[in-house]
């Protein structure tokens, strides 16, 4: 792991990639004094970007805290911390999620399940304590109520980026926006597990993870994000941290730490090669019986192994059974049996049980009514069967 400077904690920390910062850093500002949890920003994001099937849980912007969702997520995250960083101090002794990751993990995280996404607004208006009638706001804070907009923060040191074993997530050098390469992602859901804000979502229709793209097509055209341009009472605003620091019109607040953050932000330079393995001696390891035959043109392998459960779906925290056959590509090479090595490639035949499931959404949610999309013609991406 590399040593990088954490401008929020005011100290160096360990991270999976060396320090390197973008020219500008995307930032979004939400004025919590104005936010009324109208969800207009949520709906703007949903209607602009997530109209495809399999994206019912995807939301670039949500506003809460909610006992069942965000605060529960935070509690789960906190419970996994051996020692939590103490906010409000310039220098802290706590560990970050990278430093406190258990053996075999890159980030201390947890993977939300279907239930965690099921009731996004339940408890949103529940206050955690009582406030006296007629009470006025005084310092220090008494129990008080506000909505906290939750978005992908396009972090300086993204946990999703650090989690991805394929290097499918990258931070753009021009504006710091963090994106999932939809061509490289193979749906391992490590990023979903690693993100402490739970702002990466697995799409069971495409088998890949997706996240907030900070409306980069709009930004590249010089216009505003969907959530920012539609938010009620102008409670949301976006731009780079340089603009926030300089005090853009109508913005009373400046981003804390913007000056330090502007210095740079990380871009992947190396790809960690750690592979997490179940040791062959582990009693849970499968014993595979293999047979093969050929007709001179094709070769077929028949693999048979005992598996107590049939897992043929993928969804949030659901993974599919799979199998693979690997051979060296060239006869004169002796590649590593662990996916080859540079200069000695291997060819891999890969089967996944989920790929035999015709309609993943219907299989995941058998009682879900069909979704009507307000587009002309065929329903776009309503089911995987529509795509073939």
């Amino acid at each position: 792991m590399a040593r990088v400077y954490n401008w929020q904690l005011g100290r160096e920390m360990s991270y999976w990639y060396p320090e390197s910062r973008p020219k500008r850093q995307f930032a979004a500002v939400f004025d919590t004094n104005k936010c009324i949890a109208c969800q207009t920003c949520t709906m703007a994001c949903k209607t602009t970007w997530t109209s495809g099937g399999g994206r019912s849980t995807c939301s670039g912007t949500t506003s809460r805290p909610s006992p069942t969702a965000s605060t529960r997520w935070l509690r789960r995250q906190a419970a996994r911390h051996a020692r939590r960083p103490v906010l409000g101090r310039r220098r802290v002794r706590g560990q970050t999620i990278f430093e406190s990751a258990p053996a075999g993990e890159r980030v201390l995280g947890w993977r939300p399940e279907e239930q965690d996404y099921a009731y996004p607004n339940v408890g949103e208006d529940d206050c955690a304590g009582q406030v006296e009638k007629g009470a006025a706001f005084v310092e220090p804070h008494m129990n008080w109520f506000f909505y906290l907009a939750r978005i992908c923060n396009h972090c300086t040191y993204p946990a999703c980026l650090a989690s991805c074993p394929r290097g499918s997530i990258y931070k753009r050098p021009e504006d710091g926006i963090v994106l999932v390469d939809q061509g490289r992602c193979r749906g391992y859901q490590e990023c979903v597990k690693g993100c402490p804000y739970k702002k990466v979502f697995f799409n069971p229709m495409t088998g890949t993870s997706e996240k907030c793209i900070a409306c980069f097509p709009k930004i590249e055209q010089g216009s505003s994000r969907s959530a920012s341009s539609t938010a009620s009472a102008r409670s949301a605003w976006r731009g780079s941290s340089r603009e926030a620091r300089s005090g853009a019109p109508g913005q009373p607040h400046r981003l804390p730490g913007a000056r330090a953050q502007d210095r740079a932000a990380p871009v992947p330079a190396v790809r960690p090669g750690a592979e997490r393995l179940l040791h062959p001696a582990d009693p849970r390891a499968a014993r595979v019986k293999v047979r093969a035959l050929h007709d001179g043109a094709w070769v077929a392998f028949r693999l048979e192994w005992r598996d107590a459960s049939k897992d043929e779906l993928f969804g949030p925290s659901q993974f599919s059974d799979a199998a693979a056959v690997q051979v060296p590509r060239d006869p004169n090479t002796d590649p590593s049996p662990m996916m080859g090595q540079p200069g000695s490639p291997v060819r891999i035949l890969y089967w996944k049980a989920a790929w035999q499931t015709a309609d993943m959404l219907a299989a995941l949610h058998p009682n879900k009514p069909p979704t009507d999309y307000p587009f002309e013609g065929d329903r776009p991406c309503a089911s995987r069967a529509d795509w073939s």
Partner: protein
Amino acid sequence: LELSYAPARNVHNPNFRGTTDAPVFVGEAEMFGSLTAVEEAQADGRGEYNDGKWRVVLAAPIAMLGTAARVGRESKVAFAVWEGRAQNAGGRKMRAEQWTKFVIE
């Protein structure tokens, strides 16, 4: 329009499979994290789950497996299995520790 809302399909990510696609794909790798689909590769297969066992057939043209796999030539083969219930994915898997001798007679 449907492609706009399925970016992984739009960029031909092999992880997306249509209902008429075979549940098997051919890839090539040179190290961890480098698995890439072999363009235009043919492959076929099917898995059946019965009596607590998976029986899976994976098939491909011999030529698709590279020049190492030829009738009459000795080569090597290795296997891996992923258990969904144990949240196996990517490098989290059960795999053969060594190559196994492989001859297409």
